[in-house]
């Protein structure tokens, strides 16, 4: 399916080097970092974000990492400044968040260790405006002085 599939595919080897990618050993260190962050999330609720763009990955490292993490049940997409693709991994609490630009190029790729990725939650400023937003969208009925609100 899905536009979420490309999450791990950006650094895939091309046809000219199609044999199995070599293991450079970098995925394992990230997996240990995720394991540590999961422990903190469970114990204290503190969330962790890991910027995979900042990792010195070689060919195949990202694929190896995402293979181990697997795919969970939840996929989501946020349309703001281009798509952001969110994929729950097979490890509860571990999410891949792929920030893409307006022409689908990757801006950055994060792993979030959290109950829900931050970008899925409403922004506090938006939440503060939510009642006013709802009110503005509700059908209006001009009340005469002395009228009481309709009852069911």
């Amino acid at each position, binding site marked *: 399916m899905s536009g979420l599939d490309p999450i791990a595919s950006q650094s895939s080897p091309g046809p000219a080097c199609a044999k199995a990618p070599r293991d450079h050993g970098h995925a394992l260190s990230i997996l240990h970092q995720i394991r540590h962050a999961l422990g903190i999330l469970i114990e204290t609720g503190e969330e962790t974000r890991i*910027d995979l763009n900042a990792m010195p990955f070689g060919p195949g490292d990202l694929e190896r990492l995402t293979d181990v993490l697997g795919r969970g049940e939840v996929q989501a997409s*946020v349309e*703001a*400044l281009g798509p952001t693709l969110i994929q729950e991994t097979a490890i509860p609490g571990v999410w891949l968040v792929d*920030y893409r630009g307006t*022409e689908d190029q990757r*801006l*950055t790729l994060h792993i979030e260790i959290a109950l829900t990725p931050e970008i899925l939650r409403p922004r506090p400023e938006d939440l503060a405006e939510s009642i006013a937003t709802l009110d503005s969208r509700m059908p209006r009925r001009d009340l005469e002085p002395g009228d009481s609100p309709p009852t069911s």
Partner: protein
Amino acid sequence: MAARKTPEKTLGESLRDHGLSRRGFLKFCAATTSMMALPPSLAPAIAAALETAKRPSVIWLSFQECTGCTESLTRSHAPTLEDLILDFISLDYHHTLQAAAGEAAEEARLQAMEANKGEYLVIVDGSIPGPDANPGFSTVAGHSNYQTLMETVEHAAAVIAVGTCAAFGGIPQAKPNPTGAMSVMDLVKDKPVVNVSGCPPIPMVITGVLAHYLVFGRLPELDSYGRPLAFYGQSIHDRCYRRPFYDRGLFAESFDDEGAKLGWCLYRLGCKGPSTYNACATMKWNDGTSWPIESGHPCLGCSEPSFWDAGGFYEPLSVPLTLRPETLLQAGAVGAVVGGGLAALARKKVKDAAGTRQPVTVEELEQKL
């Protein structure tokens, strides 16, 4: 023409004017944080700072250069974060990109300088024929590069030298340096100078430095060569995905041997990764597709001073693999003393020459040629 005062709107206001939602803003900040090589946990602080940041006026001067640095910044495959950052500065002069030409272009530069006195940033790409060189090697609007640079930086808040030519003299300064090319930091002594070296620099590093200035209102922490530590703090070698092969003594000996095919370390094919500091290993090129070492080619060391004269590109570094760390430290200390002496001598030479600066005349050109 009205003076080009920096717009009063904050970045947050400009973003909302662009129709960006708060989630979009959060995403922008996450990507900017990544671009600045900062931990993702700092994204909320970046968001708060960007919300209130003002657009700085930027004057971009191009001297003895190939335009590769501007190409690096502007020739991204698609509209990217770099474009967004460029939207949020006021680029008031860039003679490759601006529509104005001739006197109108120079007038734009002078107006931006006057309206933003003490606050504008100057970006320089390309080296500068020094005060003792024939000024005719490179002029803009009849003025020598040296004269234009010194005039423009006089009331600047800071100077960003983009590319190895501006940062260290680069290829124009390669032996025998026929144009007397000098770097920005050789000439500008009374303003903060940030060197964003590379031939060309990684576009995200250029915009990362700008983003840092936007977010924090000051320049980033620098290494001894004036480069931002966030991007130049570690050697290519230390961040290289082939490093485990080096540690195990597995080297490609030629470009088509089994070691090369297996992706082993390129040290013996001349890789300058151990002595080169840059962000290629993590930021990569062409929208993060690859970088020279991943493509099977040794690092040339293009972000280091005098890389063009540093021996053959395919000659291994002269430091033997068996050298012990303490020996290297002693060698480094000797190098620092010698280098410091040479730098002081160069500074004196530049200072002595600065007082005799004159406009370029035809007679002068003919006499020196």
